[in-house]
């Protein structure tokens, strides 16, 4: 029934795949015919390296926090909250709220005479910090990330924990297992698929946080917030086509490899027969 698929596929080809292929061809075109010179150039580019390192560092910070906090929240809700999981609504609302509206609020909180600084000064006597530059940058960025993206992982862990059998935990209690033991030896291994899924989801959410970073800092953010998308965006503005296509190709290959690996590992879930 290809006729059903064709319209959509045709559009994907026209707007995404074919021009992307052209882009790859362009990236291989150097001053002296075809070759990988653009790629070599790219990997030596300071800005690219900075962006790559920053993106990875941010991911290394946000993903464990995302997985840990969402799991903690879901387990707490499972164990203690009986009147439905009403807390989920604020979290989910934060997910739906458009960036354009809310990002400035974070600036207000974290700027030089913003509330966070005023609080720590009045409350703890600490001097005003610069939250919007330097390593402390991670505090607002990670906060925004968690506020926005905790919703779905909490669902996943909550649903997962709900579907585990009560008898299993009772048996463990009878055998004298402490709460921590039950967590470590029952919950964690049984929720491994959820943990993996959330980790991957968190990794890709890192790419989406660029939107917030862009609204907060613009095209040229402080050094620590310079992400790979900033690099791509700026190359685009400069119409530096060779760098741009090479970088896009590198990213596509990296991301493609990860996704492909995941799909292969979960073949049966995605292609039931």
């Amino acid at each position, binding site marked *: 029934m290809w006729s*059903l698929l064709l319209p959509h596929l045709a559009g994907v080809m026209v707007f995404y795949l074919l021009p992307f292929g052209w882009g790859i061809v362009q990236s291989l075109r150097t001053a002296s015919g075809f070759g990988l010179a653009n790629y070599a150039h790219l990997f030596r580019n300071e800005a690219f390296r900075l962006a790559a390192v920053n993106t990875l560092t941010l991911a290394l910070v946000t993903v464990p926090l995302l997985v840990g906090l969402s799991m903690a929240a879901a387990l707490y809700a499972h164990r*203690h909250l009986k009147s*439905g999981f009403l807390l989920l609504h604020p979290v989910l609302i934060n997910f739906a709220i458009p*960036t354009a509206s809310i990002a400035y609020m974070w600036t207000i909180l974290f700027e030089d005479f913003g509330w966070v600084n005023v609080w720590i000064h009045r409350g703890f006597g600490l001097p005003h910090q610069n939250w919007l530059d330097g390593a402390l940058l991670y505090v607002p960025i990670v906060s925004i990330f968690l506020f926005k993206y905790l919703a779905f992982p909490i669902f996943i862990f909550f649903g997962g924990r709900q579907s585990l059998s009560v008898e299993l935990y*009772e048996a463990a209690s009878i055998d004298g297992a402490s709460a921590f033991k039950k967590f470590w030896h029952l919950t964690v291994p049984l929720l491994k698929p959820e943990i993996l899924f959330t980790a991957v989801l968190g990794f890709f959410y890192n790419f989406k946080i660029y939107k917030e970073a862009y*609204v907060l800092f613009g095209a040229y953010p402080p050094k620590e917030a310079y992400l790979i998308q900033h690099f791509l965006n700026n190359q685009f503005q400069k119409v530096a086509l060779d760098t741009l296509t090479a970088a896009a190709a590198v990213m596509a290959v990296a991301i493609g490899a990860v996704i492909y690996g995941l*799909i292969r590992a979960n073949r049966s879930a995605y292609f039931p027969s």
Partner: protein
Amino acid sequence: MRCLRMKVARNVTRNIIVAALAAILLFPLILLLLFSILDGETMEQLLASFGSRFADSAPFRWKVDVSSYVHVAAESRKFAAALLNSFQYSLITTFGQLLLALPAAIALSVFKVKGRRLIVTMYMILMMMPFQVTMVPTFLTLYYLDLLDSPWAIILPQWFVPFSVILLYLYMIRIPSELHEAAQVDGAGTVRLIRHIVIPLVKHGLWSVGLLHFIDSWNMIEQPIVFLSSMERMPLSIFIRQSLERNAAEMFVPAVLFVLPILIIYGMYHRSIISGLLISFTGGGGTVSGQTPDHGVQGFSGWGMPKDDVDGRSRLGMTKREVDVHTRLGVPFDGVHGPSRSALEEGACR
């Protein structure tokens, strides 16, 4: 009696914690709403002296000013144009995307066309790419089609984003193939099959994917910046950014008005959004490996009627009010919102 007192006390502290957490989580939104109704001077004072509330005793004069709402909503033509653009883009892209994605997803999941593994894999990879990677290819196509700086520059690429196809595909592979096979054995042709079997089953998924996409496209910032240039075509998200850059105090009211449709949609349809997402990714609220869909989804909303749980214990006899009363007293009735207490704990507390 001791047990009941313990439960009530625990519930009270729990509610306080939950309320406090909810306030923290909604803090940026509350801040936004607050700032939008305050007068300019009040805002400055608030910003500067919030911390000093504890030290100073000077009373704080709040001047609420809603006239800016009237001004923006009723008089500002630029705002109205931007709002209209946002609606236009979000609605047209959502409808078109669903219209194109549904047949594609049907072809991939129900009819299992040749090459479906390749196509699904490709779509999934494409779906995960950040915008900047596909930005140039799309830009070039739009350039050569001479569509830049027109509404089509936004609409067309959005129509062919693989997101909907993949979500619908994941949704539809949960439908047992025996259903289609049975229909085909009974002589149903393709059209019949789709109209009477597939579409009713998928309606829910379509609705929630549509809602998700609408919310996502309402937030669209990167595409307008790259594919559009004239201000008349910009959606409200960009308009707000421009307002911010001109004069920070001006952005609050448009920002609130911008959030309003989202809050309304969320209020009305959050269950659809949640359950659609969950079914696509986790088979209904069970584990991600796709095991038994469980009472996860009902448990989230807190307003679901108690249903039979997997052990066959029926609670259909309980009305919602009874459920509420039971909950408030802390009397456990496990299974509805998840196993709240094990048999051991219940026994210990009786």
